[in-house]
């Protein structure tokens, strides 16, 4: 059977994307895929006629494994795929979902495009900023939430729409958003402090 990829089988790691370590400390650590991700990576390699075609799916795996693409993570992907480091940088920096900075454990993307705008997206975004105390592109100090304004999510018929990690939430209202935030807070363990996992 042709090996098919269960690319998104891993949910965000227990520690959440914020658990991905920051490379600002200058601390040298060696990244490596977990055995589960390694298995997915090997299947990826088998799917494409050349290794570079596996680059974007591999970078997605790396974001999911490490939380974001640090320089070290990009170097690791380059080495694993035997693709020039410059090629990895050039691709990684082109795509918005290949995050180059740590996110909150729950990454909230608010659609700001026309159909959502017509159904109150600006109001919803304002509400989220107030509730979380952060602006677009920021992370709450406890590492729990990050917020981003995004373009059309292809949920215009059920606008306004937001995406939290892998899931869409549609026909949103400030009250529904509040209920979601409460639920996420209740069901998540406290976020690890920086570099604290494992």
């Amino acid at each position, binding site marked *: 059977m*042709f090996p098919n990829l269960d690319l998104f089988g891993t949910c965000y790691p227990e520690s959440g994307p914020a658990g991905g370590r920051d490379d600002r400390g200058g601390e040298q650590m060696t990244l490596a895929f977990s055995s589960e991700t390694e298995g997915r990576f090997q299947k990826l390699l088998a799917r494409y006629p050349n290794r570079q075609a596996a680059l*974007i799916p591999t970078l997605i795996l790396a974001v999911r494994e490490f939380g974001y693409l640090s320089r070290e993570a990009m170097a690791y992907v380059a080495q694993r795929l035997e*693709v020039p480091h410059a090629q990895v940088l050039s691709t990684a920096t082109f795509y918005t*979902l290949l995050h180059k900075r740590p996110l909150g454990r729950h990454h909230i993307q608010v659609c700001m495009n*026309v159909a959502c705008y017509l159904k109150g997206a600006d109001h919803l975004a304002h509400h989220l900023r107030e509730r979380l105390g952060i602006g677009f592109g920021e992370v709450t100090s406890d590492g729990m939430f990050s917020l981003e304004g995004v373009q059309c999510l292809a*949920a*215009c*018929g059920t606008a306004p729409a937001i995406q939290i990690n892998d899931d869409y939430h549609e026909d949103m209202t400030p009250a529904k958003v509040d209920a979601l935030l409460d639920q996420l807070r209740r069901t998540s363990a406290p976020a690890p402090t920086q570099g604290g996992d494992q």
Partner: protein
Amino acid sequence: MIASTDPTRGALLRCGPGESIDLARHRALGGFNALRKALAMSPDAVREQVKAANIRGRGGAGFPAGMKWGFLPKDNPKPRYLVINADEGEPGTFKDRYFLEQDPFVLLEGVIISAFAIGAHSAYIYVRGEFVRPIQRLEAAVEELYRAGILGRSVMGSPFALDVVVHPGAGAYICGEESALLESIEGKPGRPRVKPPFPAVVGLFGCPTIINNVETMACVRLVLEHGAERFLAMGLPKDGGPKVYGLSGHVKRPGLYEGPMGLSLRTLIYEYGGGTIDDKPIKGIIPGGSSTPVLRGDQIDVNMDFDSVKAAGSMLGTAAVTVFTEGTCPVAVLTRIARFYAHESCGQCTPCRDGTGWLERLVESIEHGHGRPGDCDLLLSAAGQILGNTICALGDAAAMPVISFVQQFRDDFEEHIRRGACPYGNKPEAH
């Protein structure tokens, strides 16, 4: 009978919101009959059927699928690829997600038939990266077809072999443009290629490649199931078949609707969509995704097919209709659109890279009350300099809404500039 009185269900849309069709149900509904018919024919005969049905591409440009397939070189020894565009990025559009998430076997059956017809043994389905759940559903469906012997070495026991790869995007609208999409599969930034050569000649991994939209695949399946004549009869003589329409904005019942190609816009909005919220008069209608020129509320008597919408001064695009009613500020709407295209320009041609930034800043300054007399003409001339001067159609996609909004709602723009504030009392949010 395939025609259904319920406009939300029928030939293309087989289930409503919250429902989905699994493999057993697909089989029960006559699934794979079309594929079986195709496999019993020669690839040439399948291509002839598709050509006769004149399926106009559902990705936005309306180029006939059969004709595109005909551009494949006859004597090139390289492998051929079929690539399905499920990037669904054009703002307002949300139809392809339905197939991935709720009815993937319709898409996959269309893919297998099309690959057989063009002689491809690998098909890639490129799905935007935000669609994590739809990708999971589609991947699971692909796995099921391998297990059922419908994909793999021998499709339904025939000598035809086909592999399907679901390839994720990673957040870039430009990757919906077909050559950028190919670059993206190859692991590169999504920068459109200069054409010619066209992908049918030099496409994925340098090989002849056909790129089609998800809904186009669903149409191919219908053509094989019912024949080209029946398919044409479901729409117009030159633009056949049923069509998925998206309805969003200020309507009572937004969502996806199926109707014949050429459905009247009035019927779509007032009958299918239940009319406008609070029964307000319509101010503007974006008929086919945010790049298509805006129509005024009084231009509602147009039929939704490629030629009629074009004659009305706009484009059918993805038939993703966004309605806004009186009281909505057109400057605010255009600001969102201009911001989008400026954000999504890949940056490799100057008129687009710089021009979209100019348009965004100009429209935004008007929205924020800093517009100056003459700005409307400046907008028209800046947009006019992008039109036709770029490598790909994103440049035009950015320019057309600006030109049409200024032309259709010039009074609103001028009033905005004169007052230094929104005549509708909008207070723009900081971004």
